[in-house]
């Protein structure tokens, strides 16, 4: 699973992509949700939990907390940016 990082998530995690090798990485259940991914990433990178709004896209579509993801999906973490 590849996670593309945008904005401040890139600074928090320290690179522009994050590879998640296998499904066992963040829990034992076979099917995982966006919510579980967020919780897992939040444990690894506590700064992520401070973001009030963090959009998650799965295969280029906005995903809700209960969207199911699998190992072949492309995930993007998109925080809002405010600069003008």
């Amino acid at each position: 699973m590849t996670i593309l990082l945008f904005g401040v998530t890139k600074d928090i995690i320290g690179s522009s992509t994050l590879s998640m090798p296998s499904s066992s990485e963040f829990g034992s259940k076979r099917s995982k949700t966006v919510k579980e991914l967020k919780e897992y990433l939040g444990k690894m990178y506590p700064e992520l939990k401070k973001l009030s709004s963090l959009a998650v896209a799965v295969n280029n579509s906005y995903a809700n907390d209960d969207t199911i993801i699998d190992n072949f999906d492309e995930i993007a973490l998109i925080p809002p940016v405010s600069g003008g």
Partner: protein
Amino acid sequence: MQMDFNRYQRQTVLRDFGPKAQQKLKDASILVVGAGGLGIPALLYLNAMGVGTIGIVEQDIIEITNLQRQVLYTEEDLGRPKIEVVLERLKLQNSSTNFKRFDTFIAQHNALEIISEFDVVIDGSDNFPTRYLINDACLILKKPFVSGAIQGFEGQLSVFNYQGGPTYRCLFPNMPKQEEIPNCNDNGVLGIIPGIIGNLQALEAVKAITGIGEVLSGKLLLFNGLHQYYQTINFSLQPKNAAIKKLLRSYGAEVCEIHHNISIEEFEKKLKGQEHIQIIDVRTTEEFENFSLPQVKGLNIPLNELKGRIDELDSQRPIYLLCQSGKRSDMAVRMLQELNPELELYNIVGGVDGFHAFHN
């Protein structure tokens, strides 16, 4: 006035644009919020292409740190109000445009009134409170708005509330707190990035008005300049976000922006009038010792110590907050106001950089 079609011949000759779309531009009114990095390219092209009525909301002063991306302003303009300079140049560029000048910050008390005069809004603001305010006001007034935002080497673009389409809150439901996401002042932006995103905003506004092509509605464009990477994310309307009927009582920061700013020019007048003005310099001790101006040397309390040293302030007198560029002093005003709403606080806009610019 009869429109000079010859002037726009290079676009009216296009089969998919033609005189019909040109007339729609002429009849249209567009509001640009912020004449900064995003607003300037959008304004230049909309004005060049023949948009009939253009409104501009802006109350900032031109600072040296603006010049790297706000390409309309020159070194000679430093210290002048952006709204004045931008209008001067745009009038020279296209004398038939009807300009509406809003020498103010858009805020809860004026947003509905200002936006109601226009067909489309371009959000080129530089802070979240304004972005959420524009979203909510446009929903109430049923106006589409073209949102662009930048940070570092990246940009985001989408057209919200277009023909009942998704809104800003459908992507980002909750407004981030100020300290959560870095802004351009703290984190920087490569000068050309707002040029790219601001131009794309103008293009989306032209499409929304004329009906040509496909408007970027329900899609968020993510742009990364370092990798020349463009990606669109699809998203849909969350009905609860469309149901906004009135503005929030507060969008956070706006009160300070309206009431608590003082320009270098006004502050200099105050300095001449009184002997003992309370200036609190919230820069680091190192900055304070190395880069201070004798005429505005205040008490140094670095921003991160301010909370604990609030007793050192004389609450009976006005307090003028100073830093290098006006950003940290603005944060200091907000922080102090929250700690003690009775304090009379002023942010010296432009900070020490502003004094240098003003005197050179």
